[in-house]
């Protein structure tokens, strides 16, 4: 059984201190970059030692899920601090002020795949176009459909470049699909956006849902064109998925990234088996329900080890 992380990893206490000091001008940009690099290296080592199939760079220098794209894409400027779903964390709302386009900016700063990775393959985690559109303030496009289409094309251009750089798996984080209860029309627009994103990319793709009950939208998203759908089982009951014909892989979000309570191997094994038996997807891979960055790093590392153990023992 496969198992891998789903995105942002918490910063070490050393990086916390370095970033605080840098914000006060007490640490140089080069020193801060060195601190980032140490954390990325440690995270990659953690994953390769656990022999995961896909490694992530942990988005350690991303200030939120959208922030890099205000630099990488045209037409976006930063807005005010806004609550990140139902968490005590905040992001800066992107304000769409002009046509959004990827104009070829270097991606190296925010997508790091140059470290030794022991044969594992690189997974890039990006915002899904729907969540990006919903969580932004649109002042440039006349319709929501035009905005989500533009974001899908821009993200497609980005992942095409990332594929050339060595990434082989693209995961799109879409908490809003479960959290915002999109209309039927919006779900159709999201489906079209994923056709744009995935068509011809020649890499594994996943749509990862979290912060909400995927059972409410599974009817609509089950035939989206990604290879995998990630489910947050701390917000979704297994029973709500059983009536569907799952021809995709399920990312079994069974490690709770929003609570420090460590999962027991026994309960994880039962939960994963239950998903395999009752939902009967094409395959199951083990993941946290969402980014582990909601935890202090020492707890996140423990949870990662639990994930690694679960994928071995359940298999």
């Amino acid at each position: 059984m496969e198992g891998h992380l789903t995105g942002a990893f918490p910063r070490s206490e050393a990086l916390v201190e370095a970033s605080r000091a840098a914000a006060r001008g007490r640490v140089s940009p080069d020193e801060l970059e060195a601190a980032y690099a140490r954390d990325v290296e440690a995270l990659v080592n953690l994953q390769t030692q656990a022999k995961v199939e896909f490694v992530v760079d942990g988005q350690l220098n991303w200030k939120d899920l959208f922030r890099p794209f205000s630099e990488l894409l045209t037409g976006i400027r930063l807005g005010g601090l806004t609550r990140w779903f139902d968490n005590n964390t905040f992001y800066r709302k992107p304000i769409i002020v002009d046509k959004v386009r990827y104009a070829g900016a270097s991606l190296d700063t925010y997508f790091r795949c140059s470290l030794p990775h022991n044969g594992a393959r690189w997974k890039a985690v990006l915002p899904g176009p729907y969540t990006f559109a919903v969580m932004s303030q649109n002042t440039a496009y006349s319709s929501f459909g035009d905005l989500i289409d533009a974001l899908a094309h821009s993200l497609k251009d980005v992942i095409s470049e990332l594929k050339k750089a060595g990434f082989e798996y693209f995961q799109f984080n879409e908490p809003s699909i479960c959290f915002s209860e999109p209309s039927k029309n919006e779900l159709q627009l999201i489906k079209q956006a994923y056709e744009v994103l995935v068509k011809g990319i020649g890499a594994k793709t996943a749509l990862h849902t979290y912060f909400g009950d995927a059972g409410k939208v599974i009817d609509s998203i089950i035939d989206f064109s990604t290879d995998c759908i990630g489910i947050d089982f701390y917000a979704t009951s297994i029973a709500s998925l059983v009536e569907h014909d799952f021809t995709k892989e399920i990312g079994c979000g069974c490690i709770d990234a929003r609570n420090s309570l460590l999962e027991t191997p026994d309960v994880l094994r039962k939960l994963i088996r239950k998903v395999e038996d009752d939902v009967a997807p094409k395959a199951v891979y083990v993941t946290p329900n969402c980014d582990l960055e909601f935890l202090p790093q020492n707890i996140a590392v423990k949870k990662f080890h639990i994930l690694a153990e679960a994928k071995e023992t359940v298999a």
Partner: protein
Amino acid sequence: MQKQRKRLRDHTNKLFPVQEIGSLPKPPWLISYLRGRAVEKPELEHLAKWSKISGFEAEKDIRAVLSQPKTAETEKRIRNFASLFAIRFLESAGLDYVYDGEANRIEMYEHPIRHSEGFEFYGHVRSFDDRYYRKAACVRKVGFRDAYHLDEFTYAKQAAKRKIKVPVTGPYTLAEWSFNEFYQRRLADDYHDLSKLKSEAKRELVLDIATQIIRPNLQALVDAGAEWIQIDEPAVTTKPGEIPFFVEAFNESTAGLSCKFSVHICYSDYRVLYPDILELKNCSQLALEFANRDDDTAAAYAQLQLLNEFEDEREVGLGVADVHVDDVEEPSLICGRIKYAVKTLGDPKRIYVNPDCGLRTRSWDIAYSKLSNIAEGAEMARREIS
């Protein structure tokens, strides 16, 4: 649904009493002293400047303590002086209700958690950008350790020349900002619907914090003579489905206590509070943030209509100054916001005025300017409406 009419009139018998919401920045000389650093000249100049402006009577005493090595005794004395310093600051800015700027607290979350049983801190989590906070985990059944606001209240009560309102972080916010291990572990056998399990465990945690920690603290304050306690619940709308937990916890915390209680909520769509918030049984005032979202036209204050819509006749603590920007609101703007609120709510006696939230992220200069202008704006409104 219970119609909310219960409220206490202001003791000062004037319209638009001015109140603070809670925190002020920590004085730089206090920080240096508590960290064992030498207090530098600019910090002493800060002390001198604000002593002069606020009529603070103990500058010489503070200087004497600052010149001594830190001991348990000097630390207690310097903290009390910091309280007095904040009280005089607020009084001189023209406030009718004051407290000590939370000078004795680490901050609104960590302070009560460190003084309660059942929690452990594991490390930092990010709040936004490069800002972090220490998040605790509830690892055992929560419990009362000490009345963590009693000493500061006792000191402030004898020191203040104005009426006092005590801010206390509420049970829902303490629960929401903590990890929940203990109560969730007890329910952990059922993995079929983890969402339901988490929700049940959360309710238990919120209610235990209310009954085991907050209520004894409130009881201690009331026994010591507190007449008005503000329950701070900034997290209350984070998970709208859990607002009933907040209501139940507030009622458990305050039931039967002879004191005026209010609740402070900020940076939220207040619509999600209704109708549940009508069930708060011992709450005389809703102190709400508005200025942060306003554009100088008072449009943000349209949400006050919610109170009319739901026949909620409690007092309103009207946030008229944004605590997240250095731009200082002019008295005329504040006056306009108050008049808008009067026009919306009808009864001017229901309206208190305050900053949106605690001012701890502003400088002392900006905080003072904002508070002084609030007092002046309230006076303008008083003259126009009386």
